[in-house]
């Protein structure tokens, strides 16, 4: 083993973690790239929304589909994956107190990702890739579009490798004692799923690149199968990363505890084992696959990944409840929730993320992903309604919440426009909840997704959708605009804080902060440490039991209502 170059470290005054300067820089670079992607995707989102809102119908058809392509790629690939790489540099080197294993390689990975993203953006805005996010052949884009995605994926794969290497380095250099923390364990499952996902990406985009050059043939159904191994599995990286951030935010904001490491970690392992089967969710009403294949794969074997999410849906709030109860908030069922720091944007974002992901995203996702119920959901507005609840209301909101902690803890800055930052999660959550609920409701009337004009003005036959649809789309637009305001506040706050804002004073107290600036309560007054050792579990999760009971009833009701709806349509088999 060659000598390791002396690395420069600082000690975080809040968490006590030793942070490698390269980890600091890499997290900053990825966070900035993620925010730029979010800005591009967000502008596209508003343009798409104002076009689908028939009252305004802003863009012409070609620009609608172009901007929709930009929205999908910028958000679902660039924003999310840049942010997740930042999460991996945090959960690896920072949480484990170790150095970044090979900074030069990490920067090459970042350059590949950034270069690939720029190439793809160029192709899309130039109108050379009007193929939407899925780019189903035989629709054809410029070969450089596929090349850009390949470069991005290779970069992300190398960056993920840095995380795995950090696990080895930390173990060998003994930078932590005992087992890795749960947050790192969860991030490791996200990283494993990322490898699975990115390999699917290579398996589908390298042949597609060759096909676009005229060098080989491409079966449209095989493409759909493998592409969704990328397209859906990449959303499962989000799930694993988001759940890790739930545990992280719980720990930072109110001192959540892990009730049982075995349960939480086993649930993460279930994600790794089963969640990548979800490619099938997109192929349930396709001609290429048998019912047995569809049933087995769409259910992740036997809903074992759903089981994992339901477990986290218990352990995350129960860990929060126990953390609060052990610090004295023991009255009744919900004092721990009532007296929680609702003015801390990290906390409110965490709670709304859990609720929107579970109630709006999770329940609907399982229901629409049922083989037969998919007949009344496939490619309707129900589908984007579902995944805006999971990816935006769930994942993106959790990422936003953790950003308010990243700004002081990693960037060493105060959070600018603090009063706005405090209400940002409320605006964003309310907007996304309304937006995605209305979108799903419109979908039950057969409103198609990815469609320029549901007034069907240019169609050879008139199409009469239910008159309720106009009203529902109006509600969707209001929700979408509200969420856009929330998104814009997030971008302004983060960009201002990081580039124009004030440094974090030492020591950081309420008195030393600049006017209009703030930092989250978890940084200002970290939750007081609990005595080590086991405690009696009884009564620690009373409130959570009520919450998950409500969830289960909602789940059962929604699921069977959809079977009822299905039984009313034409007989088909």
């Amino acid at each position, binding site marked *: 083993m060659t000598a390791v170059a002396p690395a420069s470290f600082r000690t975080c005054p809040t968490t006590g973690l030793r942070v490698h300067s390269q980890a600091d820089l890499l997290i900053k670079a990825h966070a900035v790239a993620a925010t730029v992607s979010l800005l591009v995707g967000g502008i596209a989102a508003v343009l798409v929304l104002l076009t689908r809102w028939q009252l305004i119908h802003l863009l012409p*058809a070609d620009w609608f*589909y172009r901007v929709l392509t930009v929205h999908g790629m910028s958000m679902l690939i660039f924003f999310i994956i840049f942010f997740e790489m930042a999460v991996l540099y945090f959960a690896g080197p920072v949480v484990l107190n170790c150095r970044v294993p090979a900074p030069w390689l990490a920067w090459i990975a970042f350059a590949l990702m950034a270069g690939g993203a720029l190439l793809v953006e160029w192709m899309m805005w130039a109108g050379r890739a009007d193929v939407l996010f*899925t780019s189903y052949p*035989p*629709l054809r884009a410029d070969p450089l579009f596929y090349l850009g995605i390949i470069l991005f994926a290779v970069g992300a794969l190398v960056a993920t490798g840095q995380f795995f290497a950090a696990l080895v380095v930390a173990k060998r250099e003994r930078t932590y004692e005992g087992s890795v*923390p*749960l947050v790192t364990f969860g991030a490791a499952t996200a990283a494993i799923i990322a490898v699975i996902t990115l390999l699917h990406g290579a398996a589908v985009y390298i042949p597609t690149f060759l096909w676009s050059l005229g060098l080989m043939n491409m*079966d*449209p159904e095989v493409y759909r199968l493998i592409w969704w191994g990328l397209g859906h599995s990449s959303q499962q990286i989000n799930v694993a990363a988001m759940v890790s951030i739930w*545990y992280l935010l*719980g*720990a930072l904001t109110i001192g959540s505890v*892990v*009730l049982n490491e*075995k*349960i939480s970690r086993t649930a993460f392992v279930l994600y790794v084992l089963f969640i990548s089967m979800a490619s099938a969710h997109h192929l*349930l*009403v*396709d*001609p290429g696959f048998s*019912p047995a294949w*569809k*049933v087995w794969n769409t259910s992740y074997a036997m*809903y074992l990944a759903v*089981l994992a999410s*339901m*477990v986290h849906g218990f352990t995350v709030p*129960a*860990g929060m409840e126990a*953390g609060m109860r*052990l610090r004295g908030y023991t009255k009744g069922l919900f004092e721990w929730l009532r007296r929680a720091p609702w003015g801390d944007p990290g906390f409110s974002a965490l709670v709304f993320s859990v609720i929107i992901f579970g109630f709006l995203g999770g329940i609907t996702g*399982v229901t629409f992903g*049922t083989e*037969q119920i*998919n*007949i009344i959901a*496939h*490619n*309707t507005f129900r589908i984007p309604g579902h995944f805006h609840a999971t990816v935006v209301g769930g994942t993106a909101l959790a990422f936003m919440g953790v950003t308010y902690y990243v700004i002081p803890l990693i960037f060493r800055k105060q959070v600018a426009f603090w009063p706005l930052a405090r209400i940002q999660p409320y605006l964003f959550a309310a907007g996304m909840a309304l937006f995605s609920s209305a979108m799903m409701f419109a979908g039950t*009337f*057969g409103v*198609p997704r*990815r*469609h320029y004009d549901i007034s*069907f003005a*240019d169609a050879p*036959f008139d199409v009469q959708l239910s008159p309720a649809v106009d009203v529902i789309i109006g509600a969707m637009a209001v929700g979408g605009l509200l969420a856009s305001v929330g998104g814009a506040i997030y971008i302004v706050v983060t960009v201002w804080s990081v580039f124009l804002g004030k440094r974090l004073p030492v020591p950081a107290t309420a008195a030393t902060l600049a006017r209009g600036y703030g930092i989250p309560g978890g940084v200002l007054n970290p939750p007081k440490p609990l005595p*080590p050792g086991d405690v009696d*579990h*009884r009564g*620690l999760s009373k409130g959570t*039991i009520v919450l*998950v009971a409500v969830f289960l009833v909602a789940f059962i009701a929604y699921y069977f209502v959809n079977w009822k709806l*299905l*039984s009313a*349509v*034409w*007989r*088909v*088999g």
Partner: protein
Amino acid sequence: MNSGLQSPRGIWWKPAGKAERVWVQIAFAWCIVLFAMMPLWHFKGSQNPAGIRGKVDPGAFARRTEEFVAAYRVGEENGMAIVEPPAGADVYLLGRMWSWEPILRLRKGVQYTLHLSSVDVNHGFSLSPVNLNFQVVPGYDYGLRITPTAAGDFRIVCNEFCGINHHAMVGRVIVIDDAAAPRGAP
């Protein structure tokens, strides 16, 4: 107890508390119900996406559609054939950029085998306002045994992006009820 940010010391593989254990059991039982419903509906339900699935050359599918139109043609609207197949017939519906061909006239309560395919890119068969959706993939023949359960004048909206005029791709299905007055007939 440690937080999610702290390393657990020693052996953490310990029995869970009662609340967690019971929740895992309830959740698992619910997952089994979710799973069982799908095979059950194949036996007891009337809506399944099974169908007759096979590969087909796009040119061959287009020829079958032409033969089908020639055999059962009953009229024309806006230059597009209206086709009224007999009960139990193999019905062909062809998606292409940016139309569904031909116009179909079916009977309520009668079963047909509806073959869906495309000659160019992916399309989406979405029967409006019933909200019945299937993916239409070039090179693949999806033969669905369908039985209209209501009379009326229906539309087929394309709900898979298929190019610049995707939003104008609308077809028509007329379902007539022999028992009732011939409303809905063109």
